């Protein structure tokens, strides 16, 4: 007897339960903790959907880094949560919203159950692009990200930079150029320090490994970069390192390095291979690894800066 279907159903009901507890939890902190657990469970579903790359991204970014972001935000807001009781919605509104939510979910579920039998797909084209003369990558996801849909991937890095600029511009004028507030407490707990000492070196190695094998196996620039970002944040929480001043040259260079290198290589493709973002045959793999290395750097710099928030007065380093 195959037990996988039962495990699938168990996993599905677990996810729905944890998601529900995220939505209905009374306490903000409890909701955030449920959300992190829920993200990790979602990663298992992605593995069941033959999407290990998505699972890695979901676990690292969707659950891990987002969790740190929300926990940090919750702590910074904690002082006022008790001071100001929020007006709760009445029962009529609750029932109405519940009915609307059920309606939307049922409509979506019906659409999923009635999908056409022969689905339209870009897979053949993508596979051709991935195995064509310009590629030579074993991991089709990386091939799609860097070769077939390269423009999307480049612009997504630009979105990250825009988000960093947006976060910085929310800070006070007087604080411009300063460092963001520290991530950890002024005296981090011994457990946090120990965790950072043990985890950060190992995690950094794993992050570089995930980036390196990403060309041929599950992994890649996103997942590796997110892991490196997480390790930097762990070090900052244990106060081994502080958030850098936002006017530091190296920081800004690191932020733009990924998309800049990507764009330059893409433009070089016009003269070298005859097309924007085309890679010359035979050199595609080293070029792609080269681009990805800079993207890892940009992601590893951008994610912690997004979590650290706007520059702060009174935390000059």
């Amino acid at each position, binding site marked *: 007897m195959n037990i996988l279907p039962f495990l699938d159903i168990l996993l599905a009901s677990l996810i*729905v339960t944890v998601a529900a507890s995220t939505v209905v939890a009374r306490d903000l902190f409890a909701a955030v903790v449920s959300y992190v657990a829920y993200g990790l469970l979602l990663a298992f579903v992605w593995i069941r959907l033959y999407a290990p790359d998505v699972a890695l991204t979901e676990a690292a970014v969707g659950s891990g880094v987002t969790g740190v972001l929300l926990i940090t935000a919750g702590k910074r807001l904690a002082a006022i949560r008790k001071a100001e009781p929020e007006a709760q919605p009445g029962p009529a509104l609750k029932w109405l919203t519940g009915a609307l939510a059920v309606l939307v979910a049922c409509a979506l579920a019906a659409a999923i159950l009635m999908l056409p039998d022969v689905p339209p*797909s870009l897979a053949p084209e993508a596979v051709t692009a991935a195995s064509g003369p310009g590629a030579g990558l074993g991991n089709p996801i990386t091939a799609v990200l860097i070769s077939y849909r390269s423009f999307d991937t480049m612009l997504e890095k630009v979105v990250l930079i825009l988000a960093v600029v947006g976060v910085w511009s929310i800070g006070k004028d007087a604080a411009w150029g300063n460092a963001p507030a520290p991530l950890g407490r002024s005296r981090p707990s011994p457990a946090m320090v120990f965790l950072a000492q043990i985890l950060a070196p190992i995690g950094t190695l794993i992050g570089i490994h995930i980036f390196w094998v990403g060309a041929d196996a599950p992994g890649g620039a996103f997942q590796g970069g997110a892991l490196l970002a997480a390790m930097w944040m762990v070090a900052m929480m244990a106060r081994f390192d502080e958030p850098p001043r936002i006017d530091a040259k190296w920081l800004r260079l690191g932020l733009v390095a990924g998309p800049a290198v990507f764009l330059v290589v893409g433009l070089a493709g016009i003269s070298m291979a005859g097309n924007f973002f085309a890679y010359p045959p035979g050199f595609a793999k080293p070029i792609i690894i080269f681009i990805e290395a800079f993207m890892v750097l940009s992601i590893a710099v951008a994610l912690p800066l997004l979590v650290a928030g706007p520059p702060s007065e009174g935390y000059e380093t």
Partner: protein
Amino acid sequence: MSPSTLAGLVGATLVGLGLYGLVLHPHPLRKLLAFNVIGNGVFLVFGIIARRGAAAGLSFDPVPQAMVITGIVVAFAASALAVALILGLYSEAGRVTLDPDAWTKPGPEEGK
């Protein structure tokens, strides 16, 4: 029921749950959490389409999967911006309520 159909139904449920939280929670950070739950549901629905679109002999369609990876990172960037805006609202006004009526009453800062 195949694992991908089941995952799709989970995605649909998540969209419903998230929508409920997004509408009803007064706290903006809770709204943000609920919005992320909706996003995950949408990604899952997209994911089963990736699974179904495996027409080229692969076990999945890499294009939607790559777009989901991009989507997860963009969703994080948007959440980070939202958190910064919420914290900015708090540091400007001393509270984070989105209730328009609350702003006409004296706030904790104005009482001083």
